[in-house]
């Protein structure tokens, strides 16, 4: 029996008598229905006996068809290519559900989101404050309810106010920062409680850039929603649109042609390269080495201009199409390969020069530490998790598209390399320097993946397969996912009645999962190190706020 099948058997055994039977969709989604009040107990079993990690909580308003709201708890089964989707209905007459925040700290933010967007209250939640909708929003207005008109404008002004946690004590003072920041960055509010220079508490308040992505998608055609998915977070356009397209393709039972999956992967790795180089430049600049930063920015510019030659967009907008891609990597293979290897060669020189600056390395080392246990517990994703020793990478754990054909993780190629990689991971210190080093490694890794892909580009040149009409059953649903430079982006779609719209589009980005990291990473560091720590985590506000 394969590993997922073994895990599935265990799940069936654990849930027998407590929930509906388990049905498997799209190869790796195991769906189970349960009673609302049994949820906490079942979630605990899925975690403790089956190795489940909470990946997302998605609510949907299904009052029209089923007479209720439905909550879906998605678990990622650690170590195997399997997701468990546990669902339970909520009666509109009793708009409440049991909180699981005491079992999964990461659940709190989903529960707050469900409260704001659907008006369902998590009973027993440790943090019942509003989150997505800010002060001017009246009680009783919940945008993702189907009877909420998208054009409704809230009337009031800052009436309600927001209660920040207060840290009292001798000598503790507060520093509020934002939402409008000093640099060219996105909006968010940080409230520091400091004792002298040390940060004793940080509370973030986000969602200033909330643009109503999920609600908007419900009024769009699938192709328009694809354009929207690219604009969830502009610097993650390929990852998010790939996740969206894959979700639709899975729902349709279609598979993108080989050339398309290869092109997607090449673009995704270019996206990873230009962004990682940008973040490394930011770190180098914040640590006071402007020359190193400017060299890295030159390299980022070269990759962005390659992006444009290749796809017509410096940010790689327009790569994806439903059922495939709109550009063909084979046509520009020579240029891509030449530029990437030239950039890589220069990148190594610059990184070496930066590593030679002890003043830079000293600033990064030991700053902004996230302990491994905590990183796992908080459900962190991507490079932030890996830098704290948590071994997660969607490209390897749930191989999608061309990644199934590749050695994504060269470290796992031989037993010795696997051991070396294990040791390296175990040594990951979780500080800013660890995240700096991981980014450098990943730029190398991405360049190698692009190389591998360009060498074996195959397929018959078909760029898209049809994904429309009869293939898409009304109410068909599927997960889609991709590993962006920030970590896993997880999307869930439900197809509408007319087969060309969405009843629900739920997006959980890596940034949403990772934002809680900053509040723990800064503890006991000094305020002056905050920009460095923030940069090293590379969190997107737009991707979080939707």
């Amino acid at each position: 029996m394969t590993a997922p099948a073994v895990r599935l058997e265990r799940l069936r055994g654990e849930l027998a008598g407590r929930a509906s039977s388990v049905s498997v969709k799209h190869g790796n989604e195991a769906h189970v229905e349960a009673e609302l009040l049994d949820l906490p107990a079942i979630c605990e079993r899925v975690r403790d006996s089956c190795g489940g990690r909470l990946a997302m909580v998605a609510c949907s308003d299904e009052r029209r068809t089923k007479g209720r709201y439905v909550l879906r708890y998605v678990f990622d089964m650690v170590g195997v290519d399997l997701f468990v989707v546990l669902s339970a209905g909520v009666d509109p007459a009793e708009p409440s559900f049991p909180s699981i925040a005491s079992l999964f700290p990461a659940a709190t933010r989903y529960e707050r989101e469900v409260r704001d967007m659907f008006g369902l209250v998590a009973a027993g939640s440790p943090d019942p404050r509003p989150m997505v909708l800010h002060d001017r929003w009246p009680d009783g207005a919940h945008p993702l309810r189907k009877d909420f008109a998208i054009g409704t404008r809230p009337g009031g002004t800052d009436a309600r106010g927001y209660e920040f946690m207060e840290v009292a004590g001798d000598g503790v003072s507060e520093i509020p920062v934002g939402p409008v920041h000093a640099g060219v960055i996105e909006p968010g509010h940080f409230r520091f409680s400091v004792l002298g220079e040390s940060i004793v508490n940080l509370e973030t308040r986000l969602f200033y850039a909330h643009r109503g992505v999920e609600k908007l998608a419900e009024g769009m055609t699938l192709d328009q929603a694809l354009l929207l998915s690219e604009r969830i977070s502009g610097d993650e356009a390929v990852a998010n649109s790939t996740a969206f397209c894959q979700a639709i393709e899975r729902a349709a039972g279609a598979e993108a042609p080989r050339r398309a999956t290869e092109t997607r992967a090449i673009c995704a790795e270019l996206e990873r390269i230009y962004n990682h180089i940008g973040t490394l430049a930011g770190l180098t600049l914040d640590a006071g080495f402007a020359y190193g930063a400017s060299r890295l920015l030159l390299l980022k510019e070269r990759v962005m201009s390659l992006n444009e030659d290749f796809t017509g967009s410096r940010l790689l907008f327009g790569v994806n199409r439903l059922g495939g891609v709109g550009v063909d990597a084979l046509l520009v293979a020579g240029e891509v390969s030449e530029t990437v290897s030239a950039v890589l060669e220069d990148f190594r020189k610059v990184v070496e020069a930066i590593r030679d600056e002890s003043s830079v390395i000293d600033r990064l080392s030991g700053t902004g530490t996230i302990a491994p246990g905590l990183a796992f517990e908080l459900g962190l994703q991507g490079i932030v998790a890996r830098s704290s020793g948590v071994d997660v990478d969607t490209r390897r754990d749930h191989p999608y598209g061309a990644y199934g054909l590749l050695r994504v993780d060269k470290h796992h190629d031989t037993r010795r390399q696997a051991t070396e990689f294990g040791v390296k991971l175990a040594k990951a210190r979780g500080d800013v320097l660890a995240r700096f080093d991981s980014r450098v490694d990943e730029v190398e890794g991405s360049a190698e993946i692009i190389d591998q892909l360009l060498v074996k580009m195959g397929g018959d040149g078909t760029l898209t397969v049809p994904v429309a009409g009869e293939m898409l059953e009304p109410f068909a649903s599927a997960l889609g996912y991709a590993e962006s430079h920030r970590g896993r982006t997880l999307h869930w779609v439900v197809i509408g009645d007319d087969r060309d719209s969405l009843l629900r589009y739920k997006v959980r980005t890596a940034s949403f999962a990772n934002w809680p990291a900053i509040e723990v990473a800064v503890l006991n560091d000094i305020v002056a190190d905050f920009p460095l720590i923030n940069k090293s985590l590379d969190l997107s506000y737009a991707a979080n706020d939707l």
Partner: protein
Amino acid sequence: MTRARDRRQRDILHNGVETDRRLLDRPRYSEGFRGTVALLPGAAGVSWPGCASGAIRREGGKVTVDLGRCLMCGRCQEAAPEAFAIESGWTRPARRRGDLVTVQGGDVPVASAQDAGALLLEKVGRVLGRSLAIREVDAGSCNGCEVEISALSNPVYDVERFGVRFVASPRHADVLLVTGVGATNLEDALRRTYDATPHPKVVVAVGACACSGGIFGETYASAGGVAGIVPVDVYVPGCPPRPEAVLYGILLAVDRVAPQKTS
């Protein structure tokens, strides 16, 4: 391929000046860059309702394309190549929102190399003579516009050479460079930032979102562009606009600052 050759640089650690000295009078974009939409004669008989941002309209028998909404996605050209053509030149930023709407048979406001160069020559002297302080405000963008605004500070674009500086506080700013849809949650903060900026102040709306709401339109979460919250002096279309376009928009804004300051 010349651009590929451009990218094969000398030794990265000893490469001297890499700044593009002819930033605005020599096109930097590649042939395939999707920069603007032109209306072709065939547009007369065409009505294409599929545009995701609602940029294509039909008014009084005439087709119009609102480049202040356009995402440059190219779908219109694919659906009706006889009516719409995606071109690589970028749309010229404008002082009036209406100037971004092209009417069939009318002019396409594309920045040609010559007029951008002329604008630069005319103004840089003045800009150099003083320094222009810019405060960037993200009012609900996807961060794509921020990526391009940040690029202005890299060694290739190097806006500081024009006397343009990004400052940390609105109190030090002459120009507010605003991106994003004008998010409901940011409305008060944007208004307060505007109020905190000393007179004379100029607002440059950067990107389709800031010009019109772009793909996000006007909803419970979006004011449909920053003009719904603060007065806007210059509109920079694009999704995102390329760095040169943002710089062009800033130069247009200079006009608004300079006379008042010298008086």
